[in-house]
């Protein structure tokens, strides 16, 4: 790829993260968080977007971001007060900003009708000051453009993110260095000079500092003066010292605790700093401004250090890791190139977390951010991951086959081969788990789209909504995530449109005018559970029932439990909205949601309390690559039924099996009759069904909520199977969802329960009449 293009792509990836950060900040502001750091975080994010856009000449985006940034700047400096109205305007402006980014990425432009009004609204807020269109906020702080040149020269595309993050640092160092301390917080000056013994005991200063960062906001300054020229450098001597300025509510004992394990092997000084303004460290008698400048100069320090090391190093390979910046493993034997790459690599995306994470406060100085970045991340092409996952899937199968063959060959369980295979099995499982974890992603990527949706739907319906999200960090396989967006979107729309009352209605019902919708993700029993709860009117059961009768979904005199009535809304063709609204009534209803959830191997349930609200609960597998299945035998074939569809299994008694019209078998399960489908016959493997009273019936629920009993000869057990596509080399087969490979190396087919149940209904009059027999 054209290096410039790839940098641009990185920029847009960055933008996504920055926008997420900004939105979080804005939402916090809307919730009344007027904390300087929150505002700063938003400012920085917007500023970074603008900076990047400047480098690529994305004029529309720059213009909009600039106005946005100016508003944030005014808020930050206290020139403007953060009112509810301002926060709401900013949120709407944020949506447009996101559109601008999207437009810049995908080509095209943002609708002026959307962009212009909000732009003038913002300009009105800041009194139009300093906002000539030509004035794009001082190019001096872009800091990005010169980097671009460097990149092209170097042909190394990953260089820009630090630059982007430096820009706000240079522009706004003060706030980062002297954050508003929380009440009761004190400033501490901590001198930390590890001795070489500390490293000899496998302690790492980087980890210690990272631990320290958890206590509060800190600024780390490296003192590398003791670092000798390379030829005099001893790999096992500790040369680096740090001075940490920590603002925390913790007391000295707590701080000291961080150094508990290394205290004897370092020179540690901890002293309180009077006053709140975070005075300079002792090493340099700097004013706040000077400190800021020092921090902004940090990259230069790195450069100087690098120059020092590489300049005097005869061969890069022997150059010990100076790592002044990274503050870890000072005596490691990395080469200079690695260090350079490290210093310039896109670490910033790994540590976007601007809010709530105290460590992020020091992020602007590229070096120290690296030292205490919680986790480093890399971006990997998804194809590569998928290839790896496929290969591991095959490895698992191959390993299982090998084990089985060794067992069958009659080797003793205690033989070395068998023991070795056991180890191999453990290892294989571990690899599989780790590989699956690579694809796992937090549901955040889906959740983060929801606040905007909630705002839009609320605007359109005239309702007031507060969306509360929890568990955004819950991880699930990427393929599942991709397919979660639609159902959640639909359910959220539904909850706001149908679930919540309008403000007047709510007040009349004695509730706050603003409705609350909670979106929550959590892990439970090896699955991911997503709950969407509103505090609206709840399901109007008489009306739902009435509609169901009207549409012929249930008989007029049907006796249904409250739960059954609630679940009627999942029936195809059911929509309670009196007027089909633009928002949720797009000709699809909750049945579509249910189908897509079931397509993922999940289930959705609803519980509702009139007047109090409803709660939808979705339970989904963590990955689509494997499936929990019940292995059964039918017509001498080994088949797998997805466990998610199975309710129970039972041994049918001959007297419970009846025939309707002489050919369709039904079975009585407690007080209800459900169709009894012989799997062997349904798949055409044999002509005659098992005689009543033989085999095992597996009660399943199809996507439409219809129940049926699948008759098989035997149940072999439950197993987790790796799903293999039949379509890859063949084509789809009615009644079969996919294939898998069992431990004996043979292919087993996975039943498509829904298709089996529904085709059975539709194909009734069709050919296989013989199956009526047998009993």
């Amino acid at each position, binding site marked *: 790829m054209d290096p410039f293009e790839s940098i641009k792509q990185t920029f847009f990836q960055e933008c996504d993260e920055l926008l997420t950060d900004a939105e979080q900040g804005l939402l916090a502001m809307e919730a009344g968080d007027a904390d300087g750091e929150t505002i700063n975080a938003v400012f920085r994010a917007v500023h970074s977007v603008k900076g990047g856009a400047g480098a690529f000449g994305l004029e529309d985006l720059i213009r909009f971001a600039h106005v946005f940034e100016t508003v944030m700047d005014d808020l930050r400096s206290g020139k403007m007060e953060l009112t509810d109205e301002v926060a709401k305007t900013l949120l709407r402006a944020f949506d447009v900003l996101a559109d601008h980014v999207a437009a810049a990425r995908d080509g095209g432009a943002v609708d002026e009708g959307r962009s212009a009004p909000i732009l003038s609204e913002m300009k009105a807020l800041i009194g139009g000051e300093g906002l000539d269109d030509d004035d794009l906020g001082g190019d001096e702080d872009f800091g990005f453009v010169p980097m671009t040149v460097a990149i092209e020269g170097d042909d190394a595309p990953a260089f820009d993110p630090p630059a982007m993050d430096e820009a706000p640092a240079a522009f706004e160092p003060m706030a980062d260095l002297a954050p508003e301390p929380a009440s009761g917080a004190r400033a501490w000056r901590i001198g930390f000079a590890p001795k070489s013994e500390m490293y000899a005991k496998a302690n790492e200063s980087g980890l210690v500092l990272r631990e320290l960062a958890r206590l509060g906001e800190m600024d780390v300054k490296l003192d590398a003066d003791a670092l000798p020229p390379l030829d005099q450098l001893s790999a096992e001597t500790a040369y680096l010292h740090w001075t940490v300025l920590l603002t925390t509510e913790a007391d000295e004992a707590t701080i000291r605790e961080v150094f508990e394990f290394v205290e004897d092997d370092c020179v540690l000084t901890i002293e309180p700093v009077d006053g709140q303004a975070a005075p300079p460290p002792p090493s340099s008698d700097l004013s706040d401004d000077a400190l800021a400048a020092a921090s902004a100069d940090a990259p230069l320090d790195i450069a100087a250090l690098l120059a020092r090391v590489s300049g005097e190093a005869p061969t890069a390979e022997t150059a010990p890791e100076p790592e002044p910046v990274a503050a870890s493993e000072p005596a490691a034997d990395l080469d200079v190139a690695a260090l350079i790459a490290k210093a310039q690599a896109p670490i910033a995306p790994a540590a976007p977390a601007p809010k709530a994470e105290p460590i992020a406060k020091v992020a602007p100085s590229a070096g120290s951010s690296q030292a205490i970045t919680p986790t480093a991340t890399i971006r990997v092409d998804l194809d590569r991951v998928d290839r790896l996952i496929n290969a591991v899937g095959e490895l698992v199968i*191959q390993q299982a086959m090998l084990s089985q063959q060794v067992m069958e060959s009659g080797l003793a369980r205690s033989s070395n081969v068998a023991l070795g295979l056991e180890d191999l099995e453990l290892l294989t499982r571990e690899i599989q788990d780790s590989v699956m974890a690579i694809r796992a992603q937090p549901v955040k990527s889906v959740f983060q789209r929801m606040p905007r949706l909630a705002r839009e739907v609320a605007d359109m319906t005239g309702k007031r909504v507060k969306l509360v999200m929890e568990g955004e960090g819950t991880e699930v396989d990427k393929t599942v995530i991709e397919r979660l967006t639609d159902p959640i979107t639909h359910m959220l729309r539904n909850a706001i449109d149908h679930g919540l009352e309008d403000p007047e209605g709510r007040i009349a019902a004695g509730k706050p005018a603003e409705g609350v919708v909670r979106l929550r993700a959590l892990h439970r029993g090896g699955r991911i559970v997503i709950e969407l709860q509103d505090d609206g009117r709840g399901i109007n059961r008489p009306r739902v029932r009435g509609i169901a009768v009207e549409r012929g979904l249930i008989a007029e005199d049907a006796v249904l439990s409250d739960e059954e009535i609630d679940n009627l809304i999942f029936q195809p063709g059911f929509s309670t909205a009196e007027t089909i609204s633009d928002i949720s009534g797009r000709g699809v209803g909750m049945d579509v949601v249910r189908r897509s959830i079931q397509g993922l191997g999940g289930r959705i349930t609803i519980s509702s309390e009139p007047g109090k609200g409803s709660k939808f609960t979705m339970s989904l597998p963590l990955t689509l690559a494997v499936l929990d299945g019940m292995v059964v035998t039918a017509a001498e074939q080994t088949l797998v039924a997805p466990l998610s569809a199975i309710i129970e299994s039972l041994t049918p008694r001959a007297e419970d099996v009846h025939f309707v019209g002489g050919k369709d078998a039904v079975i009585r399960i407690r007080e209800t009759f459900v169709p009894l489908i012989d799997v062997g016959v349904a798949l055409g493997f044999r002509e005659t069904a098992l005689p009543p009273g033989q085999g095992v019936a597996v009660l399943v629920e199809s996507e439409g909520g219809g129940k049926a009993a699948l008759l098989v000869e035997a149940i072999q057990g439950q197993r987790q199977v790796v799903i293999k596509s039949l379509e890859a080399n063949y084509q789809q087969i009615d009644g079969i969802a996919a294939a898998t490979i069992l431990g004996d190396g043979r292919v087993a087919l996975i039943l498509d329960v829904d298709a089996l149940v529904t085709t059975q209904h539709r194909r009734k009059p069709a050919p296989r009449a013989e199956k009526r027999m047998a009993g």
Partner: protein
Amino acid sequence: MSMIDTLSHTAGARRELIAFRIGDQEFCVDIMQVREIRGWTACTPLPRTPSYMKGVINLRGAVLPIVDLGARLGLATTEPTARHVIMVVSVGGRTLGLLVEAVSDIINMSDDMVQPTPDVACDQVKTFVKGLFAIDGRMVSLISLDRVLPETEAEAA
């Protein structure tokens, strides 16, 4: 395995073919289409498929459909034994296995040796046999594999 460039001056491109037997007839396909040849292993039958679909096997983790080529060509259905072989071929981006009796020969020939298929009535012949040629007094039919798998819609009906 590449084409024999040195002979390219002769009329028609030269190519290598793999010949195999089904019953008493001999067929061949382009060697470039053949991925591997392996012994027969039991298949997992697929429901609701034409009789020439023997089922699927596990080929190193991939699900490989197996076609009884004899039955597909309108000859007798093959009752596979351990001596039968599966030719793993790629056709249009898919990989599938062809059940044949035995692989008999590797033939080096040029396109101009191929004679057009005589106008015989059988549909299968028209569909699959691209041409005939004689080699060492034997007749070998050159087969096109493009339509070996059942078609998704049309043929199912």
